[in-house]
């Protein structure tokens, strides 16, 4: 298991320990110890459980000659070298769908929290500053929500936003029949210019890296809000920070960052920003379902049965 914290997800650890010989590898905080460990055990490792933070890059794969499967405790597989796995016949599984609702819920939570200034007003009340409150917040209902990537998560976000009377616009490489009631925008800049709240909900690929760049941010504008529940690298983070500091962007709700867990500290003094520690799928319910999928995929593999949720 390649996690940076061995205190991770007790339910998952217990389930893995019950069925397999589990080695917990801390490759980020104890890299030397991890390297020695890998050299010792390289031949016996047949499976790797990765996470959204640390997966299986080319280097790790090369060190494990008998690796058969990488089972990722996440939806995103951008931390796994998929091409290399395919080349070497290594199977890869992830955890789609079980966390779709939770990620969509967080997207809405961030939209509401930014619009209605939920974090600052909670702080005002706790600091005894209720009567000093001198700002109003912005209405959320009826605002136009723009979605980049109307996949499972994007559509779940649209469904929720519609319940608030929000018109939906979207961008993807081609128009989607399922989005017949939504307004298709052929470019991301178009989408940004035509919405109040822009949500990044697509997968991270070489094409979507920095899909939110300066042009998009400027089009979204001083009243616009960016919500990112995709991946940090979807956004040109330096541009985002300067836009927020200069007031060229109205606000942002961010669950993901370029270099987690490092977050640009200039954002910490802003009240129009909500910052989450990559917890889109971190509910007790989703984590249990994800753990069951990780274990289920591994069991299926070792019992020579069809994988439950294969990526490669």
């Amino acid at each position: 298991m390649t996690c940076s914290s061995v205190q991770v997800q007790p339910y998952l650890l217990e389930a893995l320990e019950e069925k397999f010989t589990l080695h917990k590898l801390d490759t980020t905080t104890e890299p030397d110890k991890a390297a020695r460990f890998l050299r010792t055990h390289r031949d016996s490792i047949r499976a790797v459980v990765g996470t959204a933070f640390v997966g299986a890059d080319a280097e790790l794969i090369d060190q494990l000659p008998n690796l058969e499967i990488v089972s990722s405790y996440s939806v995103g597989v951008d931390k796994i070298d998929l091409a290399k796995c395919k080349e070497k016949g290594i199977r890869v599984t992830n955890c789609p769908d079980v966390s779709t609702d939770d990620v969509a819920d967080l997207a809405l939570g961030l939209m509401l929290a930014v619009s209605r200034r939920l974090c600052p007003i909670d702080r005002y009340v706790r600091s005894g500053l209720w009567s000093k409150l001198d700002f109003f917040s912005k209405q959320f209902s009826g605002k136009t929500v723009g979605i980049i990537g109307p996949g499972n998560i994007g559509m779940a976000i649209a469904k929720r936003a519609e319940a608030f009377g929000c018109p939906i616009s979207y961008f993807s490489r081609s128009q989607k029949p399922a989005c017949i009631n939504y307004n298709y925008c052929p470019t991301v800049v178009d989408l940004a210019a035509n919405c109040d709240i822009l949500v990044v909900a697509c997968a991270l690929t070489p094409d979507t890296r920095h899909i939110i760049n300066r042009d998009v941010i400027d089009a979204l504008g001083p009243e616009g809000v960016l919500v990112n529940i995709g991946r940090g690298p979807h956004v040109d983070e330096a541009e985002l920070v300067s836009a927020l500091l200069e007031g060229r962007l109205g606000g942002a709700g961010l669950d993901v960052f370029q270099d987690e867990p490092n977050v640009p500290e200039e954002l910490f003094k802003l009240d129009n920003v909500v910052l989450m520690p990559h917890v889109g799928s971190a509910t007790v319910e989703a984590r249990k379902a994800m753990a069951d999928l990780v274990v289920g995929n591994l069991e299926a593999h070792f019992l020579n049965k069809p994988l439950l949720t294969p990526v490669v």
Partner: protein
Amino acid sequence: MTKPIYSYLQAELEKRFKVLKLWEAQDGSRFLEDHNQIIRAVVSDGGTGLSPELMAALPKLEIVSSFSVGMDKIDLGKCKEKGIRVSNTPDVLTDDVADLAIGLTLAVLRKLPASDRYVRSGMWKKALYCEMLLYFQFSGKSVGIVGLGRIGQAIATRAEGFGCKISYHSRTPKPESSNYTYYPSVVDLAAHSDILVVACALTNETRHIINREVIDALGPRGVLVNIARGATVDEPELVSALVEGRLGGAGLDVFENEPNVPEQLIELDEKVVLAPHAGSGTEETRKGMADLVVGNLVAHFEGKELLTPVV
């Protein structure tokens, strides 16, 4: 005007009327005595309303135009008796209050303020997995609504977008809401809900409608959200339930004695999210409310139908 409610409102009133500011008077009663022959209207808000003393001090009072939808601080019966018109600001704030109800629910279940603090304090750099905060799913949960009026219905519609099962309590069942489950008892509603939202008006019947029995039925995993009036909840019972873990969490926009908030709630900063009676506090809605307050007064003095009369 009883208090300095909103600068835009005051400016709009001053354009059309002579505005006397009660809060600036050194001696309130003297001030009223001096002006009681010319005061024909009062503009107040939900928290202040029209006190019996103020009503008694204004013999020429014709209309109270309230910057609120809540009427619990105005004696409507007495106004009717004396022929005093009363107007409020319904509908224009329905969406915002419903949005805040859902916002507070998500903020409690997904611990939004606590997580935001976790990042800003540098804790995330020390522990990549935020193990200290337990997050709970909102989608698909059972939402119980006390009071299925305009605001309660708007909350139900939003919660349905998250796949939530909706139940409600009101004085009588609503036939047009047959797809929601009706509970004649609030305790039963609480027992069958993961999240209980108070959305009813404050009346003699609904004072402390959320009592110890209801809170216990909601339980250690249950969440209470109050966007109605503080007095609908037995606040000391709520506080002890939260402190003792008999209630899972709470999202509160209103309190029994605003702006005072019980100290123990201030300390519970993970399972409780607090707001300063901000349900209608958006720029868009406050302006809409102000326009209604002014519009009702203009209609009255022009001898026309009030826009949004209560009495």
